[in-house]
């Protein structure tokens, strides 16, 4: 609970005594590029396989001849948009980007780089962390969209190559009874997750104390705490918005 209070104070400190807009603009762009480079390939790889596996497993479970084949791709779509793309990708994002945010900040803390910024009169928390959070808010939803597309393409490849269903059936299923609200819901989720992961990881890293060992510990804590927060938020959002 004390940790939660400190987290709230930390979030507050991000928005006071800031630098010029131009400074943040550059820092945020840099972060966006970093995040993109770090995660896009992994995201595409994981989501393509997720789509492929979902297709095969759904097909294997739908043995009844009464169920039309296009249901397979419909299931792939629903699972991808609602859960796999935002939530599973959030977990990967926490492991890949969150841990490096916390590790980077932790290293800056123990090597006195944060003190160096403070001596120059810079609000180090907002200077270092705000760009990370804003960049995450912009990049993560984009990555989720890419992942969703890849997942459905993975499903397409797996489904057609193994001749579970024809391309026409697959496309028909993808478009069948489509509810646009689910896309909105997925994007809301991804924005919330992006905020949670980037702010929690930064918080953990920023308040590292000690040496190299503690930096490692903060990174691990950052990942676990972010994942737990994501899962709780996932449940709450489903409860509130669906």
């Amino acid at each position: 609970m004390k940790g939660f209070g400190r987290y709230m104070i930390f979030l507050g400190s991000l928005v006071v005594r800031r630098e010029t807009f131009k400074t943040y603009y550059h820092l945020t762009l840099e972060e966006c590029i970093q995040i993109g480079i770090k995660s896009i390939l992994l995201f595409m790889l994981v989501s393509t396989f997720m789509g492929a596996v979902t297709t095969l497993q759904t097909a294997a479970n739908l043995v009844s001849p009464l169920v039309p084949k296009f249901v397979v791709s419909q299931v792939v779509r629903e699972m991808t948009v609602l859960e796999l793309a935002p939530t599973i990708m959030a977990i990967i994002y926490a492991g890949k980007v969150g841990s490096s945010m916390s590790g980077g900040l932790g290293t800056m803390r123990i090597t006195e780089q944060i003190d160096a910024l403070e001596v120059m009169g810079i609000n180090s928390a907002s200077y270092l962390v705000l760009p990370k959070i804003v960049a995450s808010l912009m990049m993560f939803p984009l990555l989720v969209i890419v992942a969703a597309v890849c997942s459905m393409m993975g499903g397409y490849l797996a489904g057609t190559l193994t001749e579970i269903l024809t391309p026409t059936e697959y496309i028909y299923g993808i478009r069948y009874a489509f509810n646009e609200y689910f896309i909105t819901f997925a994007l809301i989720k991804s924005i919330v997750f992006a905020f949670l992961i980037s702010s929690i990881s930064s918080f953990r890293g920023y308040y590292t104390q000690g040496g190299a060992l503690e930096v490692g510990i903060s990174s691990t804590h950052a990942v676990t705490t972010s994942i737990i927060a994501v899962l709780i938020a996932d449940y709450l959002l489903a409860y509130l918005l669906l």
Partner: protein
Amino acid sequence: MIKINNISKSFADKIILNGIDGEFDKGKTNLIIGSSGTGKSVLLKCIVGLLHPDTGNVFYDFRNFTEADKDMKSEIRREIGMLFQGGALFDSKNVEENVMFPLDILTKMPKSEKIDRVNFCLKRVGLEGVNKKMPSEISGGMKKRVGIARAIVNNPNYLFCDEPNSGLDPQTSIVIDELIMEITHEFDITTIVVTHDMNSVMGIGEKIMFLSKGDKLWEGSNHDIMNSGVKELDDFVFTNKIMKNLKHGTV
């Protein structure tokens, strides 16, 4: 000139600093010495404002820094340069960007002027042709030099150094010490150096404050440190036999 009065600081009921008074002169290298864990770094952090003292005030040329408002604080901060123990260079920036950073943040100089200033400072600390190197690609001694260049780039009136020669070989240490002293005289800066290295004390200790267990026990210069008559200071100065014999005139 920097003046401190009655600086106290405790962490979780453990008293680290116990009402320290003192004055640090302009154009001199002022040393804060004492054995490990006596609160030297904590005192330095209180002076530069990285920690807020529990009691007491810090005056930068009669301006009260501890109780200053935001504008006054940032005005004073512009006049401060600091060299950190490990250099504290920004990993993601190269040498040139590191040294230029305070100018980017604190001034509105045009780019070409900034580059001239950076090159001047790098040359002053004896580093040329390393502008594009990353901090991970240069040695510990070079990092200290880059740290000094960054600390003086914005023409500070006050220079702070926390253990400038920890982790360096004795020869490089002396070079760094002398560089700090030369810069102090050349630009007439108020310099405060935290150290527990006796070579530095004898070499550049123009004014020395000795701390022990949170109290200031002695103040003077490297000329009279041998004859202070303070037992704790003697223990600190005469750590080995040769020095002890030297003191008792038996060598």
